[in-house]
């Protein structure tokens, strides 16, 4: 076996990362708990209908930091809070806001993984003497000597699969990251927490975007822009049918996401969905459910994991949003660091701003951002 090293566990105060700390604290490695303080949950509280007191189960609330600290105390491991609020705002919140304002639908969790958890946190971990970090993500990370690459795979508990948010990890980052829960199911993880006497074993999972209490991103955009003394850009425009016919007006493109049905503000005999948002003309195209289906997608800002780069067409399954069942497609390189995927069956609501993650069986081939 490898000789004992120091491992930093990224602790959020939830069950998963707490179980990771408990598992590793029993190993012969030295374990240090770190919590990233990313967002001040009281910052926009009470403004524009944002809830006053953040509920537990959201990272960076005082309750969650307390829970993480209690776990570290219980396990007898050193524990520190690392403040990265500035980086989080710059690399996650700002891009999130500008993406929405540009008519796209961003995924802050992937940005946070790429910029905070597996970049800043890993850097901090290494500078304090840890060689690797461990997180509570459900994913499998293995080195394949034949290919001389670190391979990211879907976890045993496919319902908890978080590989979709991890496609941006570099080989260097993967080589320094442990996902101890990859081979476990959620009930097994809760059982580990119970066995270690962790009080939070029954704590509910967090689902929302951590900096948006209540999950209402429109309220967040309004409150954030107001705090920054920035005006909400005027992006009101026409609501058009796929035939091109103008059927109404809307208040701003930030209110829409591709595939959205509610809140369109027009009456129609059959349900209407947002098909397309044009950030230049501010035009929002709506149509029937069937019209949401597309055969191709284009993705850029790519990262490759199981291969060094894509040089020839490849058969893969592609996941286009977190809860999407990966669909068969042929992936082809397309100049200037982009790829084009052609699905075997048309896919519903391919949404610019989300990521497309490519799978070969259980392995993550790579991924990119939908253009």
């Amino acid at each position: 076996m490898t000789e004992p090293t120091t491992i930093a566990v990224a602790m959020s105060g939830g069950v998963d990362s707490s179980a990771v700390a408990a598992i590793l604290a029993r190993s012969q490695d030295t374990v240090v708990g770190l919590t990233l303080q990313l967002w001040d949950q009281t910052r926009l509280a009470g403004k524009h209908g944002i809830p006053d007191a953040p509920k537990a189960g959201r990272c960076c609330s005082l309750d969650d930091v307390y829970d993480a600290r209690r776990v570290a105390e219980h396990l007898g491991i050193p524990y520190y809070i690392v403040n990265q609020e500035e980086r989080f705002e710059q690399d996650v919140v700002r891009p999130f806001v500008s993406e929405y304002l540009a008519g796209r639908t961003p995924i802050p969790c992937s940005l946070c993984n790429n910029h905070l958890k597996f970049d800043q946190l890993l850097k901090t971990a290494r500078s304090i003497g840890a060689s690797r970090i461990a997180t509570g993500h459900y994913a499998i990370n293995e080195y394949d000597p034949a290919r001389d690459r670190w391979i990211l795979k879907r976890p045993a508990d496919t319902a908890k699969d978080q590989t979709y948010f991890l496609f941006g990890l570099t080989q260097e980052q993967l080589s320094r990251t442990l996902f101890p829960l990859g081979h476990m199911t959620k009930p097994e993880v809760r059982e580990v927490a119970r066995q270690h006497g962790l009080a939070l074993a029954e704590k509910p999972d967090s689902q929302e975007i951590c900096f948006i209490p209540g999950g209402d991103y429109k309220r967040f955009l309004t409150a954030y822009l107001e705090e920054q003394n920035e005006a909400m850009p005027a992006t009101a425009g026409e609501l058009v049918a796929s035939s091109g016919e103008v059927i109404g007006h809307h208040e701003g493109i930030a209110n829409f996401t591709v595939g959205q049905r509610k809140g369109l503000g027009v009456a129609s005999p059959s349900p209407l969905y947002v098909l397309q948002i044009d950030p230049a003309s501010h035009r929002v195209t709506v149509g029937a459910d069937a019209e949401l289906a597309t055969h191709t997608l284009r993705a850029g800002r790519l990262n490759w994991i199981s291969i060094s780069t894509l040089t020839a067409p490849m058969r893969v399954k592609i996941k286009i949003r977190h809860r999407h069942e990966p669909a068969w497609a042929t992936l082809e390189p397309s100049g200037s660091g982009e790829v084009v995927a052609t699905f075997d069956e048309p896919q519903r609501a391919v949404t610019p701003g989300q990521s497309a993650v490519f799978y070969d069986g259980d392995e993550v081939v790579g991924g990119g951002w939908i253009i």
Partner: protein
Amino acid sequence: MRRVYMDANATTPLLPEVVEAMHPYWMEHFGNASSIHLHGQQARTGVDRARETLAEFFNCHDAEVVFNSGGTEGDNTAIFGLLHPGDHFITTSIEHSAILQTANRMEQKGVETTLIAPQPNGLIDPMDILRAIRPETRLISVMLANNETGVVQPVEAIGKIAADTGVLFHIDAVQGAGKVKFDVRRFGCHLLSISAHKMHGPKGVGAMFVRRGTPVESLLVGGSHERRRRAGTENVAGIVGLGKAAELAMHSLADGTIDRLAALRDRLEAEILRLPGTGVNGGSVPRVANTSNIWFDNLEGEALVIALDLKGVAVSGGSACHSGATEPSHVLMAMGIDKIRARASLRFSLLKTATEADIDYVLEVVPTAVQHVRALSPVEAGTLA
């Protein structure tokens, strides 16, 4: 692993003599100091003796000593107890949050505050205080020694200004206690606050000098304890511990302990400064003997604090009360130090029991840790923009 504690400005351990002095007051002399019977008298004796020691420590009358719960209560009492709507208050931008946040609260109640910024060397210019005085100025509050840099403020000069202009003067002396000889007459203050745990006494107890006739209102209302200046049953064991700590502090100031401490600090500082890209914040002016605030270019102070802790060396960056929210130190920022350097600054504050061997160990650990943290600072981000 060897452990060296160099965060005395956050708190200090009790000295054995202090624990011993407190011991009888937990179970044996447990009485309420207000009671008439023997048990009450035993407790009363403990409190009175401590009061006598504190009077000597401050150089004041016994009746001018008020026991309380510590520095924050003292600071709050000075401000809440003396200021009324319409009054003007002068303090500095490098005070502890127990002063600054209290002043904020009073702003909402119609008390205007003027914050005096330090010079780049960390010193407050008394003339800046004089210039800020207006007819409605009622109180000046200035710290004796800064918790982060250790810089000792010219309180005597400020005391003279207060006397000449008829303004009340409070000194937050929490970080000076046991490090600087006190003389409230020479300082020219009306109020002065200290905390026991910064000078090897217990946490949760402190004392305040209140010059006779100073019309300070009690923060806590209830019984007639402390001559109606602080209600609440006396924390007898704590007060006895504070008394013993003050007695030992007076010895240390007289027997050369503090001079020896300054020599240790100077050696630590000189050796660390041999590392490239380092310097002292507030190093060019008088400081308390135990404190050194050092900046290290090209690193995250937060990471260095953790790295050193994992090697057994306890120091701090910024102020301990801010943990969790690591805003760059307001003290260093007020001195005009930029954000990046403020974040890369660490405070080494030695216990008076520090030894040469402690310094040796810290000097063994610091250069390697600094090199390590610096080497990893420029690591490139992931491939994704």
